[in-house]
């Protein structure tokens, strides 16, 4: 099994098969990040594919001074912003985002129910809050890396993440009460 550095070097040499492995490794991260902002599977897949095509085209510009996943997320963030500005859609805070349930098998254990609740609450958050939470937890990006991706100051990311988590907690509590 090749390391990520070896795969990237191989892609830079023109090996498309090596790039397939990179796409497979990072598809979920890129898709999740885009989906959190668009809340549409179809659009998120389209943009995510575009991100990987761009990344392949400009792989030579990746110098390895940051994680490959961070670089991909930067492209994803910019591509999503461009897509949104072209479509001139404005997502208002909570009401216009509709829930899209994933096709899960029936979840029965308490832990799985909790995870389902988290996902439901995430869908109710503003898109950029949901995105920053996904980047921090599932994407395992540090505050500094998220700052690079979102082109913000690290301190601003920290404050934004805190506020997003507080909102998420409040939303979870509301959903629990409703149940």
């Amino acid at each position, binding site marked *: 099994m090749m390391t990520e550095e070896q795969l990237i070097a191989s892609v830079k040499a023109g090996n498309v098969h090596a790039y397939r492995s990179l*796409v497979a490794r990072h598809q979920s991260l890129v898709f*999740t990040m885009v989906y959190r902002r668009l809340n549409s*599977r179809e659009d998120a897949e389209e943009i995510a594919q575009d991100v990987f095509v761009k990344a392949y*085209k400009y792989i030579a*510009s990746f110098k390895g001074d940051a994680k490959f996943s961070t670089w991909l997320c930067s*492209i994803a963030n910019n591509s999503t912003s*461009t897509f949104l500005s072209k479509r001139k859609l404005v997502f208002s805070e909570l009401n216009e985002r509709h829930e899209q349930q994933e096709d899960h098998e029936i979840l029965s254990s308490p832990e799985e129910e909790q995870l389902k609740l988290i996902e439901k609450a995430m869908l109710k958050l503003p898109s950029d809050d949901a995105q920053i939470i996904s980047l921090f937890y599932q994407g395992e990006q540090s505050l500094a890396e998220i700052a690079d991706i979102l082109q913000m100051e690290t301190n601003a990311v920290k404050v934004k993440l805190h506020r997003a988590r507080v909102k998420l907690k409040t939303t979870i509590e509301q959903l629990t009460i409703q149940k």
Partner: protein
Amino acid sequence: MERDEKILDYIDGLLSAEEAEQVREKIATDGEWEARYHSFLEMNTLLKGAELLSPSPSFVDQTIALLETEKQLNNAKTSALIKFFQATVWLWVMITVVVFSDINTSVFSNAIQQWIIGLSSLSKGGIHLLFGSSAMLWVFGVLLMAYVAVRNYEKDANLINEILN
């Protein structure tokens, strides 16, 4: 809000030893702090356990196919432009030979000229017109290629800007 920020910073390990100790004491002595702490800790644990969302199973195949299609399209575009340019260059070179052969009164040049006139029923004026038209066509081809190159350069520059900034 400040309480929540302190608790979250404590959970994230971002506090100094002194600040962490202060938060620990608050959690131990204040019921509200304790409740918020456990609540955030539980949410934190759940979030860490949550998985990334997955695209469709064919996503990787579709992406690679899209990549290869784009490469082929780019190659085809370049190939068509090059062929157009080559065709107009050859046509122009051919006509140039004829025109120069008009100035050059050697037997060979005159023979070529007469052969073309005979083949095409064109007069000398017609041949000169053909030369002028093909020269303009060739200049147009060069300008078209330059325009496409500049457009591609700008597109690439914008994309690089988008990726790196």
